[in-house]
């Protein structure tokens, strides 16, 4: 008889993004629930709500973790972004001269064209992943801190940068003349940035899971 196994990715996320002394029992219950009623959709819904509710509970219990998560995320993001921008700006002239000299036009277009904006995209990706990693590192891999950082990224950076790009898209009349670069950038800011933060946090949490004893439970 083949054992009924729940979706592996969902279980992987569940194991890493839940904390507290009830974590093991909760994971076991969700797996048992799936073996009784095997529905992938239901399992994913149960897992995602379990992650969210336990993170909210931890955040409610220790509000400092929310503040620390959001602050760490923003600070790390700004530092990595400003640092990365400065590096790319510093080497920009060298790259320009080198690509002209050696005839690497494609690289020059990718690097300097406002349409592609390769360096800012690289800086942004690294900044988001690094800030997620830093949040998990500084706050002991606690999912509540990562959630706070995600919310901050989504609402602050997403709206700040994403709305700016939408404004630019409107200004250049993108719907009539194309390309959709600004529109794609806006979507990236809204959705991709929080996702990259989550990836960075998960990289850290996967190696160093959260301390499961937030407070003492009677065994």
């Amino acid at each position, binding site marked *: 008889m083949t054992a009924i196994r729940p979706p592996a990715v969902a279980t992987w996320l569940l194991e890493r993004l839940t904390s507290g002394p009830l974590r093991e029992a909760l994971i076991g219950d969700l797996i048992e629930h799936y*073996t009784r009623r095997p529905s992938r959709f*239901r399992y994913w819904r149960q897992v995602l709500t379990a992650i969210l*509710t336990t993170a909210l509970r931890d955040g409610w219990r220790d509000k400092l973790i929310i503040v620390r998560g959001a602050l760490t995320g923003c600070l790390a993001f700004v530092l990595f972004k400003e640092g990365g921008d400065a590096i790319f700006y510093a080497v920009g002239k060298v790259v320009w001269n080198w690509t002209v000299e050696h005839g690497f036009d494609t690289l020059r277009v990718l690097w300097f064209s406002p349409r592609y904006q390769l360096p800012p995209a690289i800086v942004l990706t690294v900044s988001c992943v690094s800030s997620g990693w830093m949040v998990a590192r500084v706050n002991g891999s606690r999912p509540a801190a990562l959630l706070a950082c995600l919310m901050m990224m989504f609402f602050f950076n997403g709206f700040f940068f994403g709305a700016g790009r939408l404004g630019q898209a409107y200004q250049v009349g993108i719907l009539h003349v194309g390309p959709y670069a600004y529109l794609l950038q806006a979507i990236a800011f809204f959705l991709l940035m929080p996702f990259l933060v989550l990836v960075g946090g998960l990289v850290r949490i996967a190696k160093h899971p959260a301390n499961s004893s937030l407070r003492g439970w009677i065994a």
Partner: protein
Amino acid sequence: MSREVLGNFELMVLLALIRLGDEAYGVPISEAIEESTGREVLLGSVYVALDRLQENGFVTSVMGDPTPERGGRAKRYFHITGKGLRQVRETKQALTKLWKGIPELSGGTA
């Protein structure tokens, strides 16, 4: 009356605990509530409620043995305490007092 107030869902969890007796852990608790309400219950919410109830001293828990169908993870059995039982009684009394004398709620039809 004690200071802690039971929410609607917490009351359901406590009643399910009393009903299930020694077999009360996450899955049967959620199934008992599902049967009575007819709606899907999220296990994460059940655990957050149990966590708060335990924090307030209304329930205690003990670890069971790990089983293969749970991926080798142990069950955690929950039991209602004397304080929890008193709280359920007080909540019932308060609700019954509010219930009495409302003509719209008598007769069993909406």
